[in-house]
């Protein structure tokens, strides 16, 4: 957030601290900071503030110089003084808020910035600063609102779209997050991280194909992104494209040989391909490190079942259901084993349990859809409709 626009012109000559006019002294202070003569700069600043205690113009310019050189405590004091002399100036309040933000006094910062935004809702920076504070204090609702207001006024800020996307993600509104990241990408196509964020949001919004493309683009831009090959592999596997998935899990394991999730997925694919030795090898590697890995256990159980080793299969599948009592596929496989081995009573019980889990699964999906709709209704309306701030001066800078 540093770098708010200066309020005074900087001079390049080297004035002396002994000068009496404020402009010369301000130039000296600025120059002293730039040449690392901090003590001299601070002494001159104190002197200037003492000599012009009621001159809000001088104090404002001094505060700006102090803020530009990270003297936030002093800058905040000076802006607060100016606010006392001339209350209700949106510029002063904005600068005071920014200084307080740098001092991590977020409540004071929010107070000053909010007053500034009410007095003049035009400048995008004020809304952005408020959004940042809301986001840092876990107030995602206000963060979303303020980032949106900021972007209505400065629609070319890719970094702000990323923050809006993050706020939407925190609120679990994945569609909104995906749209925000897409905007960021349109403005700044080279950001691998943007594609990664986009892929994650799209995947969570159940747009798996688009998510896969986003992950692949991220990998093209930065092949060293951790876990990127695993993510692509997982997205392909979710779409049923196991050949491609297999390839990417392999790539991930070439880079990080102990990547358990890639190993577990690879093992599961090998079970589907009936390559028992490779499957067992990969799955056992996972289970040695993580004996409670539900999916690796499930793949192993499935393998035993396919090989006709029903006793072992039942044992492992029961373990899966202990770990994940809602594991639909494990319950179904258990039923199939009992049916194949003509254990009719057990088969009937297992089938009934599977039906219960299946109904439960449908229920969860329905509730998730309800939640997503509720979020959509909450956030998808036109930003302008919710914006009480008529944009009076778009693009205006302090």
């Amino acid at each position: 957030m540093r770098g708010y626009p200066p309020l005074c012109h900087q001079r390049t000559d080297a004035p002396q601290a002994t000068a009496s006019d404020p402009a010369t002294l301000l130039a000296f202070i600025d120059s002293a900071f730039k040449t690392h003569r901090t003590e001299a700069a601070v002494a001159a600043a104190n002197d200037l503030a003492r000599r012009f205690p009621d001159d809000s113009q001088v104090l404002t310019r001094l505060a700006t110089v102090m803020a530009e050189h990270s003297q936030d405590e002093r800058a905040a004091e000076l802006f607060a003084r100016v606010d006392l002399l001339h209350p209700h100036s949106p510029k002063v309040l904005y600068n005071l808020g920014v200084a307080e933000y740098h001092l991590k006094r977020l409540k004071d910062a929010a107070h000053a910035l909010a007053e500034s935004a009410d007095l003049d809702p035009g400048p995008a920076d004020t809304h952005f600063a408020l959004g940042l504070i809301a986001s840092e204090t876990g107030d995602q609702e206000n963060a979303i609102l303020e980032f949106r207001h900021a972007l209505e006024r400065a629609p070319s800020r890719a970094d702000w779209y990323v923050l809006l996307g993050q706020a939407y993600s925190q609120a679990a509104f994945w569609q909104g997050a995906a749209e925000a990241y897409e905007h960021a990408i349109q403005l700044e196509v080279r950001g691998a991280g943007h594609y990664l964020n986009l892929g994650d949001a799209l995947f969570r919004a159940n747009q798996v194909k688009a998510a896969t493309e986003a992950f692949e683009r991220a990998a093209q831009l930065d092949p060293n992104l951790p876990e990127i090959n695993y993510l692509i592999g997982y997205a392909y596997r979710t779409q049923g494209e196991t050949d491609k998935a297999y390839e990417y899990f392999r790539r991930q394991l070439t880079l990080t040989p102990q990547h358990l999730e890639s190993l577990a997925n690879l093992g599961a694919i090998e079970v589907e391909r009936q390559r028992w030795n490779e499957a067992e090898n990969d799955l056992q590697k996972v289970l040695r490190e993580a004996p409670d890995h539900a999916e690796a256990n499930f793949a192993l159980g499935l393998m035993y079942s396919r090989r006709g080793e029903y006793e072992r299969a039942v044992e492992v599948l029961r373990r899966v259901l202990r770990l994940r009592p809602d594991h639909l596929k494990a319950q179904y496989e258990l039923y199939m084993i009992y049916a194949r081995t003509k254990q009719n009573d057990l088969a009937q019980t297992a089938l009934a349990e599977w039906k219960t889990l299946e109904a439960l699964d449908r229920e969860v999906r329905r509730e998730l859809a309800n939640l997503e709709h509720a979020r959509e209704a909450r956030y998808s309306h036109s930003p302008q409709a919710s914006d009480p701030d008529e944009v009076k001066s778009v693009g205006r800078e302090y």
Partner: protein
Amino acid sequence: MRSIEWKYLRGSAAGILLLMAGGGMLTAGDEQQSHVKRFENSETKLQVALQEATSRLQADPQNVQAHLDRGSTRLRLGQLGAALDDFRSAVSLNPSSADAQAHLCFALWMAGSLQPALAAVREALARDPDNPSALRYAGRLLLLTGGDRRTAIQYLQRAALLKPEEADVHFDLLMAYRSDGDAPRAWAQLRLLHATYPSDNARVLYVEGLLAQDQGRSDFAIEHFRQAAATDPGLREARDALAKALVENRRWDEALAVLGPLTKDNPQSFLAAYLYALTLYQVKATREAEAEARRAVNLGPGSSDAYALLGDILAQEGRQAEARDAHQRARDLDSGNRDEVRKKDQ
């Protein structure tokens, strides 16, 4: 060495519901508010709201909504008695209001009067069976008071259906299914929470830890409690669960590191004091253990466990007469508890 008894603990942390979830959503009305109003710190907001509601009541002392607003504000300001007065006034002014009864229920609950709270929420539901707040309170209260779990679950399910945007109810449902021993449904709720909240959400980490703990996967549970407590140090349940799990697993050094700050932050917590005393005793810090056990006894004078632990510590210090007294007190409390149970059974 004293064997660890978990009589008290078994009945406590496992049944705690997650109260007071994170901040609510902004309503459309909130969005229209000024920036200053939206970003006011909560104390200031509450004081302003209190003044506004009081002014409305001065103009019209029969204004039920103003009583409810002022009561809610007072409740959030910690003025429990005054809040109860407001809610009772609202109920007497409009006995047919489900909202007024629901507010009264919540305040009674916060005051620790669970049975009266349950009675109030039943009144609320009699007036409006689809009042989402009343349904949620009724579900939670039934679970807390050992009432019918199936009914509690039905109330919570109905609340979730009526207000799908309130994802927090799924935490309640998870805990309800868990206490009902319905692991598949509890895990299904976790799946829903995983899809709804970011992966580092402290409350999701905490409940996942609880589910793993139910399966006896203590390392996994401890790790999740630890992450939850680190992500949100204000989530007391996670810190309590972490401390308890570490003690149960006899990971004394780690328990010490957690319990020291926990007892400082929660000086009125019997559970923290008891666990800290037990841990100090186990690492042979007998003098500190005694001080902490005495604090536990003061905080939970009806706990036979705390007296028994104090007795053990005193015995280890060679103060046999005092130890005998403490052990005798523990036995008396134990038999008193047994008599109580027998009476109830009869």
